């Protein structure tokens, strides 16, 4: 496990641990096991551990542990992680109202893929996705991998505002916008579930390493679950 791993220096108190060089859902369990081991090793000398697709950024408290100590802890955690990586994380089911009124790119993707809108939805919900990383905004999970047939590059001009709950596709990734944000993902539906809440234990619904399934719901169910059906500006109105 430690053979091909690189440790790069980031300023005075961060080290970037590069575990892999390619994105693969199978790597997620190793990365999460490494994070858990390293937290045990460093205890309160950890300020932040930020896992992403292939790396973990280790921000350490240099008053509690110096860099050589942290590098040794990283090596030990890598060895342990290679041995005990097993399926990890929780599984979440997210309800989504897929509709052109709140998903302006639903028909765009259907046209490009030469599929019906229902087939696009079916392709999106038929897979389980791993959360590779949380980033961009609180609770924004980068998930993959989407069926190649419905993969779409980001919009050439990002929107200034994407509504909270919007479910999007960018390349082979999918994500849900936790709050209204600017963004360039292709939006295909809307999820009424709150993804970030500082009053909830753990604050975010899911974390890196978790698994997410999407479940199509109709308009009435969406409203019952507290969804806001305000249409996208410029989206088709029925």
């Amino acid at each position, binding site marked *: 496990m430690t053979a091909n791993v690189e440790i790069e220096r*980031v300023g005075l108190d*961060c080290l970037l641990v590069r575990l892999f060089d390619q994105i693969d859902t199978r790597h997620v369990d190793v990365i999460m096991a490494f994070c858990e081991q390293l937290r045990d090793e460093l205890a309160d000398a950890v300020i932040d551990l930020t896992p992403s697709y292939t790396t973990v*950024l280790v921000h350490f408290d240099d008053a509690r542990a110096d860099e050589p100590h942290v590098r040794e802890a990283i090596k030990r955690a890598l060895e342990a992680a290679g041995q005990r990586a097993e399926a990890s994380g929780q599984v979440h089911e997210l309800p989504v109202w897929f509709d052109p009124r709140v998903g302006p790119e639903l028909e765009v993707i259907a046209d490009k893929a030469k599929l019906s809108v229902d087939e696009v939805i079916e392709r999106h919900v038929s897979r389980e996705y791993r959360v590779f990383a949380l980033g961009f905004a*609180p609770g924004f999970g980068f998930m993959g991998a989407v069926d190649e047939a419905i993969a779409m590059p980001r919009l050439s001009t990002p929107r200034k505002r994407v509504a909270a709950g919007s479910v999007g596709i960018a390349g082979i990734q999918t994500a849900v916008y936790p709050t209204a944000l600017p963004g360039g993902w292709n939006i295909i539906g809307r999820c009424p579930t709150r993804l970030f809440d500082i009053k909830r234990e753990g604050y975010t619904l899911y974390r890196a390493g978790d698994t997410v399934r999407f479940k199509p719901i109709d308009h009435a169910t969406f409203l019952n679950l507290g969804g806001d059906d305000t249409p996208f500006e410029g989206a088709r109105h029925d």
Partner: protein
Amino acid sequence: MTDSASCSITRLEGGCRVQDLGRFGVRHLGLGQGGGFDHLSLRVANALLGNAHTAPALEITLGQVALTFSASTTVALTGADIGARLDHVPVSPGGCFVVEVGQTLMFDTPVQGLRSYLAVAGGFKVTPELGSVTALAREPLGGLHGEGGELTVGDALLYAPGFPSLRTQPDTTRWSFDEALVLDVVVGLQAATFSGRSLFDAFNRPWCVGTRADSMGVRLEGPRLESRCASLISEGLTPGVIQVPPDGAPIVLGPDCQSIGGYPKFGAVTPYSLARLGQCCPGDTLHLRPVGIGLARARWAQWLGHLDGVESHGDSARM
């Protein structure tokens, strides 16, 4: 004397945020760090008053703010010189002074620097969320009322009046605005993916602070830097990191930077250089200087030593 005195914002045309040293331990959930950009001037303002180093203070960017105080108290002003006046009497930054009940503290446009820090004795009473009062533009938490958002005219920040001795800021903790500015960079990350020419240029040519400069990042204009990796798989970021998007213009990430990103990076400016960058205005010229990790750590330790010295420095009455 009362515990519920308030400082009201009566004019706000520049930027004004309630700030501390940022939010930690939640970056893996997608949250940014935030906190005052010139975190050293913020620390000095609190230290002058004997406050906790994490006490909430005001970060005033580009001046043009007016504040009134409902009860007399001692305050400290550090960072940029933004033409502060107390009921029209000029106040220079770099120390403590007493604001009397009903007086108005006004800030004009910056004379030198960009960001000023105003602390009150005991700190402003703002409830931290997830460990900090900082409020990033894309995040629904922090700030005066929680749930994020910016300060607006009419907002009132509570404080408990206090009258610690009127200390002045030691020169060791003041920024020099007269000398040519050099930022220390710890080289690392994907430096090896940059061309030799680009690395030479990065550390030998002058850089101009661009107009795209805010608390998320400061874009530097100058020679075009080239990495053989146009983009990477997104990885964790931290303030100070210098990333280079495909247009070749480096961006020094500020405290409000995103938690992950995918542009190649050749190093990170040190904490003291990042703080100093927070005082740079578009058009300012600077140089980047590579420093060894040992020297960078020694300089940072020296800074922290200077901060420790603030509380015992010059108890002279100013103004």
